[in-house]
């Protein structure tokens, strides 16, 4: 039997062996270190608790003189290119909805942003998706004829990324991150030019006072151009208005117990009386909503009580309620979904009967009718609040012919 010791060169090569052994040991340790670097821990069942959050859904409703409009996502919502946002229309005085998404003549995977010009016309911005990097805009006043407007850069993923003043001037929030910009068009949604950028605003004194995280909304109040933002600084509501060539922070300051909550302006909704900002408050344990409304040219704010979200994560769909204020439909980790209406005259929230499951948004028609729009894949169902507000009755069901796979 031969062993290594039988080698005649064993003694003379002892230093070399030691050297080799040390080298290999170092290599092995190196390999283990590399392996350790590559190793990851399999996620356990418990995750570190995160802050509660609330975010805005693009699903919304709007009113024009021609009728009611609703924007909802349909299709396979887990697959971005098989999610198709639909634009439903119900003529004034009618009871049935119809899908008008095909009139937009563009794929709606990225989402739809709607804005009205004093209730006379509706502008629809189609968010970019897949290989399209800018947003087409199209306008209608009667829901039959559509006129394309000049395109803008990619509209932000925010329901109030587009706003039109009564005089026809428009603001658009485009891009994301530090590249986000607010563009302005003097009239007719044409000749867009840069008005403000997130990076410049964040670097300005009012931006630093807020600690801007991102720009989130644009709007008008009594002729003032407004930009909404999310703020890192607790208790500061990031609403900015133009003052000469600079911007001023004009959002309301929140008192305790919200003084430590970071805030996000989810929307800047034009109401009958003026403008209401819907603000999400993010705390360690819970998320809350407050509304701040202004009606005069001095941008004096009245703040509503907080609406406490039952779960740690919430999504809110909001829109106007004619002559009352705005609605907020909240869903997320808490069940059942909550539908609340803000009365801006008294700045109070009133909660309505819980809408049916999978309600995407709600429509408050001027005639007092309330509809909950429920979507499931290609099915659209309209539920009407009936029985004195105590139950929802099914009114209409539509099948939308979605062409899955058509966007890439």
């Amino acid at each position, binding site marked *: 039997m031969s*062993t290594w010791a039988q080698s005649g*060169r064993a003694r003379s090569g002892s230093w070399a062996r030691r050297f*080799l052994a040390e080298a290999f040991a170092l290599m092995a340790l190196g390999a283990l270190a590399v392996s350790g670097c*590559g*190793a990851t821990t399999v996620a356990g069942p418990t995750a570190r608790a995160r802050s509660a959050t609330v975010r805005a859904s693009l699903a919304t409703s709007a009113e024009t003189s021609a009728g009611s409009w609703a924007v909802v996502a349909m299709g396979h919502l887990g697959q971005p290119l098989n999610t198709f946002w639909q634009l439903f229309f119900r003529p004034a005085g009618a009871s049935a909805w119809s899908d008008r998404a095909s009139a937009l003549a563009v794929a*709606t995977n990225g989402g739809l942003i709607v804005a009205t010009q004093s209730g006379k016309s509706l502008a629809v911005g189609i968010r970019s998706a897949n*290989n399209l990097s800018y947003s087409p805009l199209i306008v209608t006043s009667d829901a039959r004829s559509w006129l*394309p407007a000049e395109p803008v850069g990619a509209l932000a993923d925010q329901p109030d990324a587009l706003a039109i003043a009564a005089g026809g001037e428009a603001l658009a929030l485009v891009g994301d991150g530090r590249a986000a910009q607010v563009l302005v068009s003097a009239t007719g949604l044409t000749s867009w030019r840069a008005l403000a950028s997130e990076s410049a605003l964040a670097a300005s004194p009012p931006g630093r006072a807020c600690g801007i995280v991102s720009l989130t909304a644009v709007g008008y109040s009594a002729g003032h151009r407004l930009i909404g933002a999310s703020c890192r600084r607790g208790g500061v509501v990031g609403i900015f208005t133009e003052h000469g060539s600079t911007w001023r922070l004009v959002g309301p300051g929140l008192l305790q117990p919200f003084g430590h909550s970071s805030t996000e302006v989810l929307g800047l909704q034009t109401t009958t009386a003026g403008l209401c900002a819907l603000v999400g408050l993010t705390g360690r344990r819970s998320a809350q909503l407050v509304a701040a409304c202004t009606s005069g040219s001095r941008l004096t704010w009245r703040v509503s009580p907080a609406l406490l979200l039952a779960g740690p994560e919430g999504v809110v769909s909001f829109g106007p309620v004619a002559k009352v204020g705005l609605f907020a439909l909240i869903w997320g980790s808490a069940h059942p979904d909550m539908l609340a209406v803000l009365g801006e005259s008294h700045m109070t929230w009133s909660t309505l009967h819980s809408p049916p499951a999978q309600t995407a948004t709600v429509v408050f028609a001027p005639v007092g009718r309330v509809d909950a729009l429920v979507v499931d894949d290609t099915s659209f169902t309209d539920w009407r609040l009936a029985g004195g507000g105590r139950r929802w009755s099914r009114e209409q069901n539509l099948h939308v*012919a979605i062409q899955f796979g*058509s966007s890439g």
Partner: protein
Amino acid sequence: MPGMSSGVSTNNPTIVSAFRSLLLHEALIAVVILALLALAWNLLRAVQLRRARAGALPAGAWPYPEAAGRRLLRIAFGLIWIFDGLLQAQSSMPLGMTTQVIEPTAASSPVWVQHVVNAGATIWSNHPITVPASAVWIQVGLGVLLIVAPLGYWSRLAGMASAFWGIVVWTFAESFGGVFAPALTWAFGAPGAVVFYSLAGVLIALPERTWSSPRLGRTVLSVMGLFFVGMAVLQAWPGRGFWQGQLGHDATPGTLLGMVQQMSATPQPVFISSLLASFAAFDAAHGWAVNLFLVVCLAGVGIGLLARRASVARVAVCAGIVLCIADWVLIEDFGFFGGVGTDPNSMIPMSLVFIAGYLAITRVPAMNGAPVAIPTALGDGSSFWTRLASRPAYALRAAAALAAIGIIFIGVVPMAAASMNPNADPIIAEAVDGPPGVVNTAAPEFRLVDQHGATVSLRSLGGKAVAVTFLDPVCVSDCPLVAEEFRQADGLLGATARQVVLVAVVANPVYRARAYLVAFDRQEGLQRLSNWHFLTGSGSELSRVWNSFGVQVAFAPGGAMIAHSEISYVIGPTGHIRYILNSNPGPGTQASKSSFAVVLASELRAVLRSS
């Protein structure tokens, strides 16, 4: 990873048929090489016989024995390379290699690994016929060379070539064997099979005298021992999902169970898949015990290989062989089932290396006698030409080695050419859309306005080659890809682009304002092309042009984009349509876009040449 795939389905008949055809043609070249070398060998034999009759032939055959360990490595890895080469000839390899082999491994690796791997994958994706066929011949040639060249320069050259090609495969095809991926484990084949091919190649490439001492074998066993111990530690590391058969209340498969289940689902004989399914069930129930067994075995084999006594090493080698075979069968699933297996995975090569190490310490050539001068490079002291002219066996091996090198070059030359060509093979475009239609009819006249407001008619473009297509400026999928293909084709044309005009007609009845054309041009970087015209007009003008070119445009329901025909025309300087291309851009990968651009550019050149 943009270059990772051509995006065409794995069993695309155009690609498969072209791949088989190229393999057949290259096989014919290999046969010609073999025939020529057989002829040369016959001539040599005639010389040898004449010299033998004249009494000039020295006695004796190959004078020195080859170390057993080296012979094992050389022949076994030669056979494995040939086997791998044949696996490369599977019809799913041209398109499946990147998507089913490279991409899954690279996906879990760090970004820098993905960048490196992407460089190689891009070459493969761009040339899905040439590169896989080249890989077949390189590997078959390497295997043959290893087998037929037992000693001397050619044998060592074979070892070096094997080591080099192994590193290439390990880097670009195996994503560094997944050593930088989180689920690194011996059980799944870490650090990659081809590492052992390279290691064996290095050992074969060492001077033959290195094998005359047990030191080499001891070094090999020490390296393997440390490797096994390291792998045992890694296997025992908590939190990597190996200690549980299933995770959590929802019975998510643990890391090992997940792999076994995945392997058992690949297409293979039923008895093998049921064997794997049985092991998966056992691991699901006893995951902790399975991992403990594995850790103990790995540590035991590693420590045994590090031991100084040959008897202990023998036990460790035997245990290692059993462990490797068990893993090869139960976890690696023999490594080559499923249609895109490229090798038998790591367990067999790994075993061969440590067996060779053991043989190198126990069966050293001429250990019992006086030290023998191991032959210098060519086997003895006589010159190459003398041996060639005098020894039949040497001449045969020389001829066979030359044949093997010839076979390797059948692969190396086209692969090198493909690697230096940044443009994709036109076969990809043909695989997606079929061959272009060849016609010779007068093109319909049009008169529209371009993105700058200038009026453009076909007559105004007379004397130039014109490519016409139809694009929706707010399209989210195909039109931007077609536009990119046009832009790339313009780049490929170089100075010839001055004789070419690229034209797109708006294919959306709503967004036809010039602002949309300008936005689209900016999006696609087309505003820099002076010969690019994106044309629009009134609804009726556009309808007329669409109809005259046979283009359908329709509103689509449900939030989908406008539906329109995807077609392009290549019009000659005389105003005649010469080619009609289906311009569905298919998957829109870098490879497919480049391929379409190559086709378009070559057709534009063709119409200019023929005018």
